[in-house]
Structure formats: C-alpha cells, structure tokens
C-alpha cells in the first residue's frame, strides 16, 4: 500500500508529529508486501467485494427474520392496546436458537433489544442468545438497574443508536463488545418500528475472527496490499501486517466512497461493499 499510516490522526493533523507508539510509525519500505497466495489464482477487487457483501448479507437476512418476528410480537400486543412484555418476547427464542445453529460459527449472538421504557414489565430488556462455553445457547442476563450497574444504559452503543436515529440498518464495529461477549466483534442491526414508532433493534453479532476467516481467502488472493475499513477508517481485515485489524487507516475518507465503482483517493482504490458501510482499500 503506498499510503501509510499518517503520523498524525486527522483530528490532530495540525499538531506535533513527534509521537511514539504502535501504529504511528510509517511502514518500513523494506517490509514484505502483501503475501499473495502462491498456489491460487489471483482474485479481483470485485470478487473480494462480492465475498464481503455475501458474507454479511447472509447475516443481515437472519437479522431481517428477527426484525419481522419482533415487529409481529410488538404489533400484536399494541393491537390489543397493551405494551409488549418480556414473556411475549420469549416467543422469539426458537427463531434465535435456529439462527445460532444454522449460521455457526459466523453468528455468535442474536436477538432483539427493546427501546427502554417500551415494555410492560421491564424498564429495559435484551432478548439475546449466545453460545455458552459448552456451545449450548444461553440467554444474556445483564444487570440493567441504572443505580447499581455501570452498564445499564445500552442506548449509546452504535448498534442501538444508529438504527434508532437513522431508521436504517447498521454495521457497528469492529469494537470490543464488553456488554455481551467481551469479544472483538461486528454487530449487524436493523430498527424494529411499529406504526412509525421505534420499538428496538433486531441484531446479530459476528466475532471479528470469524468474519476474517470468511474473507481472508479472497483477500489473500488479491495481487496488491488490501484492507477492509469501516466508515471511520477502522480496519476490519487485511492481507498485510502493515494494516492489522483494529488499527485506523489514516488519510482516507471511506464515507465519501459511492456505492458502485472504484473511487480513487491519493493513489488508492476504494470500493464500497454493496450498501454495507465497509470499504475495500487496495493499492
């Protein structure tokens, strides 16, 4: 990749550049370039984009099923003039357990998260299931009492806030999910809206290592250094040690990339992965 980590982040570009720390050092020009897979035919950037899109759209298809089911439950309760209860939401369980089984290991958590104050019998609620240490699915039980738990308010997390404020589906992360799993994850979420009123979100978690396993083969077959970044420039996967997952790719503006075609920024090619907020950067 010809554009390297800028020594200064965009937010501090005008300030001092003499800083230490990992991720700040310019890439060593003598370092090996991307390790192209010798035994396999080269892949095109379009193939890589398609692989990323297909992987995550499969997860979004599951989220869509949860969204529809949650909408029916909330809508059914409201039709008889009641707020839905946690017992009503328990009807989602067979569907959520099936998703965990069908999409293992890619989907590592699935469920519905209620808008606080919208349920009859709980101030806040996650109908959330994830595999336990033995692989058997378990419900997530959180301390949601704001006076006692430091983690009670989940409305600030991107996976909740973005669908709530934009009405659109969202890919949140990569981020350290210390609320549900303590894992480095992506969360794919969609708003559940009934009669124009926001009721919560349907979502699924994908541990980043499982996402990486799904896209690594095609990234490795790309002839040039490449990485996938989210809208903030955070790297989700790459084919080079110079740009590892979790670090920020400086000096590019992924949000400016149109949905189709290759977009050039500073000698790099950027491609959106369909309508997903992930961008493949090559060059």
């Amino acid at each position: 990749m010809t554009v390297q980590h800028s020594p200064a982040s965009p937010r501090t570009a005008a300030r001092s550049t003499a800083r230490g720390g990992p991720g700040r050092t310019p890439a060593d020009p003598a370092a090996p370039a991307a390790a192209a897979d010798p035994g396999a035919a080269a892949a095109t950037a379009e193939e890589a984009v398609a692989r990323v899109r297909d992987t995550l759209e499969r997860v979004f298809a599951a989220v869509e099923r949860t969204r529809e089911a949650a909408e029916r439950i909330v809508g059914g309760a409201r039709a008889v003039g009641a707020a839905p209860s946690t017992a009503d939401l328990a009807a989602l369980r067979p569907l959520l357990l099936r998703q965990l089984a069908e999409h293992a290991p890619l989907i590592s958590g699935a469920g519905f998260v209620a808008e606080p104050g919208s349920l009859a019998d709980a101030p806040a609620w996650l109908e959330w299931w994830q595999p336990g240490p033995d692989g058997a699915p378990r419900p997530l039980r959180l301390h949601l009492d704001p006076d006692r738990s430091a983690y009670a308010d989940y409305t600030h997390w991107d996976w909740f806030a973005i669908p709530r404020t934009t009405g659109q589906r969202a890919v949140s992360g990569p981020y350290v999910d210390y609320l549900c799993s303590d894992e480095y994850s992506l969360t794919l979420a969609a708003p559940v809206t009934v009669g124009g009123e926001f009721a919560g979100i349907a979502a699924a978690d994908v541990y980043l290592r499982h996402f990486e396993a799904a896209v690594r083969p095609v990234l490795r077959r790309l002839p040039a250094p490449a990485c996938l970044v989210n809208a903030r420039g955070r790297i989700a996967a790459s084919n080079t040690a110079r740009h590892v997952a979790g670090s920020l790719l400086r000096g590019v503006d992924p949000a400016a990339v149109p949905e189709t075609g290759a977009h050039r920024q500073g000698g790099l090619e950027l491609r959106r992965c369909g309508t997903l907020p992930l961008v493949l950067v090559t060059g």
Partner: protein
Amino acid sequence: MERLSGGAHLGVFAPVQNQARVGAVARRLGDAIELGLLADGEQLPGEADLAARLGVSTVTLRGALVALREQGLLETRRGRGGGSFVTAPSGPPAERLRTRLAEYGVEELRDLGDHHAAVSGAASLLAACRTDEDGLARLRRLEEEFAAAAGDAAALARADRRLHVEVAAAAQSPRLTREEIRFQTESGALLCLALSEDDLAGAAVRQHRSLLAAVEAGDGQGARALAEEHVRAAVDRLVDLRLHLPD
C-alpha cells in the same frame, strides 16, 4: 505446532486451587453486597444456576456461601421459597470497607497496583493511537459522569471502573478490556474505599481530564504515564490506610 516442554505442561495442567477459587467467589459476591450491587433481602439464584454463571463447581460455590454466611452477608432460609438471601451489613460504609481492606497485605496491594498500572498504562497508550471520534465522545461522557458523582463513593467507583474499561475498549483490545473488568470485580470495593476520600476523588477528576487530553492528542507515552500515575495514587492511599489499620 511446537509441543510444550515438560515444565510448561506441569503448569498448564496443574489443578486450579479450589481454595483460591472459593476465596475469589466469596470476595466477588462479598464486594457486590458491600457495594450495594446486590440489595438487602435480594435472593441469590439457585446454587446450580449461580455456579454455572460464575463458571465454578457447586462445591466451590457452597464453600463461598458458607464464608459469606460467616461474615453475616448472607442468610439461609429453609423450606418453601427458601434459599440464600443478602443481608446488607450495618454500620458506616467506610468502616465496613476498612474491614475488607484488612484482608489484604501491603504486598498484595502493591502487586495489585503494579498489575493494574501495567494494564491501564498499556491500554491508554494504545487508545491514544487507535481511538476515533466516537470512542473519544464516550470517554468524555464517562469523565463528566465521574466528575458529577462527587461525594457518592459508590457512584464514583462505578464511573471510574467504566471509564477504565472504555479506555481498554478504545485500545481495540478484548484482552486488556477483560483484564480491566477483572480488576473491577476483584477490587471494586477497595476502589470505592479510596474514592470515599474527597481529596483523592478530586485529584482523580483532574487525572482523568489530563489522561483524556493526552489520548485525544494522540500522545501515547503521555497517556501511559498519566494512567500509571492515576492507579498509583489510589493504591498509595490504600496502602496508607492499610498500614494504619489496627492489627
């Protein structure tokens, strides 16, 4: 894959000391009761369920429950609707926390501080390199929450722990985040004790501000030094308090 050497094997497969696990579970639940995370009169989940959630055997859990009953933090009711119920301790909170502090030796406190300073310092350095606008906004909000909690030691301790966890999350490291969470479950009550001292809580507000300014400026080394200093200030105070407790 390279095979582990004989010595490493012995370490890996050595039994996890049951007594240590009993102590760890008792300390965690005891701290939660002291901090009010578990309320007076609250019924604990059934033994099998609770043991599964804590990831320990029912034998280990029972050992811990016996210890908590001896400390007067739990009572057992028999018969229908029976089980283990929280009995919130009486007396001023500072006194009770001092009693818990007495369970630690100075060397243990020093080592706890060294470990926490190493984790917190490394997390702060990486956060300065890796956080984005969103991460910074979350840190700022928690810093304000902490400053606004002045005078309420339990609320200060909650906000402080959350801030430390968020710094580790901003570092994009699940391992460092898990370590920070472990510190808060293992030593949350001690932190609460330290923050019940007004001058230390005031200093912590200033330390948080400087730390966040360094993270925002991308000054990794500065952030690391400030985080280490912040942990040391609290541990030094705990050591002072511990040394002045009657033996």
